[in-house]
């Protein structure tokens, strides 16, 4: 069934249609949630919060084709809310796959470094690189001016480059 038709059914209150829409992109959505929450339990919790919000608010969605973009936005907000409530990473994440470059620790170092940033900078990095949001969208989610978003991103990148060592510096 086409996405538009499924979204229309979900808008009419069909829970199964909404569930199928989410499961069609489960890897992407779970991965996005995991980047923020960094453990399976909290990532799943965030997804559960997201789907409940989607179900109760989907009738406000005007363009069916924007469903996934909207769902990701809600998911990110759920994750940020949980992070602000004090959910913290407790250890090495389960099932984390090695990178293709044969450097299995790089990904952990990078994510660890991101989560050690001050929350405003961390949020911008995660939204910009892991959620593929534009500056305007980030500004809307974080409720701050676009200039502030760019400034935080710049500061975050500078700190990351410093923390991760020389090999992460920009090539001359």
């Amino acid at each position, binding site marked *: 069934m086409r996405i538009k038709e499924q979204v*229309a059914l979900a808008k009419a209150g069909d829970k199964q249609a909404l569930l199928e829409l989410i499961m069609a992109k489960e890897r992407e959505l*779970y991965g996005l949630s995991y980047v923020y929450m960094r453990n399976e339990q909290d990532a799943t919790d965030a*997804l559960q919060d997201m*789907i409940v919000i989607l*179900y*109760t608010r989907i009738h406000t969605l005007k363009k069916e084709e924007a469903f996934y973009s909207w769902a990701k936005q809600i998911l990110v907000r759920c994750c940020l809310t949980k992070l602000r409530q004090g959910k913290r990473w407790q250890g090495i994440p389960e099932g984390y796959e090695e990178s293709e470059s044969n450097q299995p620790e790089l990904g952990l170092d990078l994510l660890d470094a991101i989560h050690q940033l001050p929350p405003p900078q961390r949020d911008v990095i995660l939204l910009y*690189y892991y959620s593929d949001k534009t500056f305007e969208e980030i500004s809307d989610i974080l409720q701050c001016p676009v200039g502030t978003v760019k400034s935080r991103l710049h500061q975050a990148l500078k700190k990351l480059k410093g923390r991760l060592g020389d090999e992460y510096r920009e090539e001359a």
Partner: protein
Amino acid sequence: MNTEKRLRQDAVRFSNMTPPPDLRGKLQASLEAVPPVQRPVQVARPVRKWFSPAVAILSLAMIFVFISTFSQPQAGLLDYGDAGILTEQTDGIGTSAIDPSVPDTGSEIPLGRVGMFSGLALLTGYLCFIEFKERSRLLKLSLSALAVFTAVALIFMLGLV
């Protein structure tokens, strides 16, 4: 390695993560805990099958009428081709310069074709209105395009340019 490039690569890797096997069950359980809502289904009606061919035929007819307006030779007072010839009758009194069997085509405006073109345009507009009246964006788009095309064609056909 460039940090930004590494961030992008990392993002791609995370987008392919394998979720836990019980994710569907947990999401379903969350949904079931929410009171069900019932709203009317609003699925956009697909375009009727006859619409596209009908508009295509009408558009072709309009283009044909437009082109044929300029392919007809313009008939002036002194140019009758083989159909009408300036005849001179010499009866000792004078000459009659015009053959009465040749129609007077002093007006250069092809009113018949302009009327036909306008009628086709009106019919096309009416069909667009019937099909898109529930979709204001498409209706505005189609009628605007038709209006521009009709206006430009009529300007040329009426000899205003």
